[in-house]
């Protein structure tokens, strides 16, 4: 049975998504995942999230998927030691070195290669398998045909994002945001938050969503260039993904309001259950599901527009100089 993996940007969301039917929940360790620290959990909260998930029969994964500094690796291992002792079910990671180190120290911990690892081909999958990864998140740009080929690549599980952003660039291979603004700020626990760099754990200013003008020399060629960036919900692809035998369908959205995320999780739970329980000879009608999804999508789009405007405004603010 395919696993439905849901986000939790706080404990209330963790509880809501478990109650809405998620099989697994992921949370970010504060300062160590690809989101603003407001949507990440302190160690104490992470402990409680594990309890909430397990009480509801769900697994809890921790995202520590930044490209940290070398000097931060010991702190990461200390954190992992705590999380493992508390019973965390897996770690979502990006940095090749951090993956290898965590695998060496905690050989039984399940490691998932994050979307930030930008896994594009079967050889990539083998590389990550070699260094200790047992499940990989497929890049959002991959086609169903490519995912089918991935299944053939063997013992590594495949996760597919079913609600996420499809950026103009490959995720994990983009630093447009910190090129425009990077604020180095250390939190109360000594972690550099790298605001402006999603790869390093800070927020992404989404500068790609600015309305760009295109020039050659001084000549204006186009006054409204929108770099493709779609926030998508999968619907038509859900049945074929289940048929392909992908291991996990993952919903992103730690930054959205709890009721909206709960609604998304409930929608996909019911969709998956309806599809897998239908008699094989009967066709599956997606029309009613499409209607439900349109309502959810309208609310998500409104939220996203607001968030993007806030981020683009923030990106123009001067960076305060760090005190020594």
């Amino acid at each position, binding site marked *: 049975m395919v696993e439905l993996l849901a986000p939790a940007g706080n404990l209330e969301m963790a509880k809501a998504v478990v109650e809405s039917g998620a099989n697994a929940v992921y949370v970010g360790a504060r300062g160590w995942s690809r989101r603003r620290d407001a949507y990440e959990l302190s160690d104490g909260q992470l402990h409680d999230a594990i309890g909430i998930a397990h009480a509801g029969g769900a697994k809890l994964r921790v995202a520590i998927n930044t490209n940290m500094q070398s000097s931060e690796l010991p702190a990461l291992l200390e954190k992992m030691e705590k999380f493992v002792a508390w019973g965390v079910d897996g770690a979502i990671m990006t*940095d090749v070195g951090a993956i290898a180190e965590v695998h060496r120290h905690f050989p039984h911990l399940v490691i998932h290669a994050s979307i930030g690892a930008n896994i*594009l081909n079967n050889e990539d999958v083998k590389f990550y398998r070699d260094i200790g990864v047992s499940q990989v998140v497929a890049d959002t740009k991959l086609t169903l045909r490519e995912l089918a080929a991935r299944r053939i690549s063997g013992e590594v599980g495949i996760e597919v994002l079913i609600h996420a952003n499809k950026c103009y660039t490959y995720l994990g291979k983009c630093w447009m945001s910190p090129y425009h603004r990077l604020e180095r700020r250390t939190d109360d626990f000594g972690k550099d938050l790298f605001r402006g760099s999603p790869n390093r754990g800070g927020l992404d200013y989404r500068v790609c969503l600015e309305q760009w003008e295109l020039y050659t020399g001084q000549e204006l060629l186009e006054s409204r260039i929108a770099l*493709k960036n779609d926030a998508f919900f999968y619907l038509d692809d859900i049945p074929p993904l289940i048929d392909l035998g992908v291991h996990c369908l993952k919903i992103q959205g730690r930054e959205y309001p709890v009721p909206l995320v709960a609604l998304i999780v409930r929608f996909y739970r019911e969709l998956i259950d309806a599809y897998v329980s239908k008699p094989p000879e009967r066709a599956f009608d997606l029309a009613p599901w499409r209607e439900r999804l349109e309502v959810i999508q309208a609310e998500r789009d409104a939220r996203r527009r607001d968030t993007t405007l806030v981020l683009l405004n923030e990106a123009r603010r001067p960076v305060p100089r760090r005190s020594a």
Partner: protein
Amino acid sequence: MQTFELNTTISNLRGLRETDLSAYDAVYMGNIYCRTFENNFLERLDDLRQGIAEVKDRGLRTYVTSYAAPRNEVLPKVERVLEVAASAGADAIEVHNLGVLRMVHEQFPSMPVHVGGFANVYTDAGASVLKEYGAVRFTPNYEISLDEVKAIADSVSLPAELLVHGKMPLGISDYCFLLEYEHKWADKCPTVCQKNLFLRQGDWAMKSVGKGVLSGKDVCMLEHLSALVAAGHRMFRIEAAYETAAYRGSIAKIYRAALESAAVGDGTVDELSWHTVRQHTAVGLCNGFYFGRTGGEYVGSQGEMAEVSWVGTR
């Protein structure tokens, strides 16, 4: 005695033949962004073989690069490029994709590997893993500071190659938005992406090459070369894959002279050099992330050039 290496990237045979390579020690061959780039070495294997021969004839080292974001369908082509590189005597392969790294390690284990900037080396532990796969040098991810680079190089005993001048990569896509507009323009694919295109909004500017986004400003480490040499760095790249042959030739001469001075402890840069740099920048200068700041900032005496207005001098 050769104490440092200055290199650059050239995408095709025309670019190779038009560029004055006299100030360079090595050339990376191929365009990592796009398969349809004009006569890309990575698609035209006869050109690649010929290019390798011509660069070797000049006594320079030849490196063959590889696609930064290859999907399954491209891997057979990558494999053929590797075969040509090996049989034609290339000195190293540059890899940006870890799957390709694994392929080189399995199929061409004696081929030295340079790990490229898109391979995301951020940590010493990461560099250490890649070294086990045959890496003999690494270009750090552009987001990390010089302090971090040095710590990695020292800890892993793996030399770093640094982008010292040119357009810093900011992102790579599978989608070329220029194709939506080219019907309106005189230039089309496969040359439209070479038309010095900039995405602008207010005082923001990025260079677009269709499937890639580069810094609008030129990374310039000219006045910081002494510090780089003092830190033990010896391999430097002029990143000019989408610049003119004149840019590649002129900027390299400035850096060669400055590196020779830096090697004997002289860090001064003459006004003529700055004048040339100024001539070859459209949006100004920056240091990338080398000093731990916003990538578009500039630290040093040429601060006023960090915010050159839209001069279009090229």
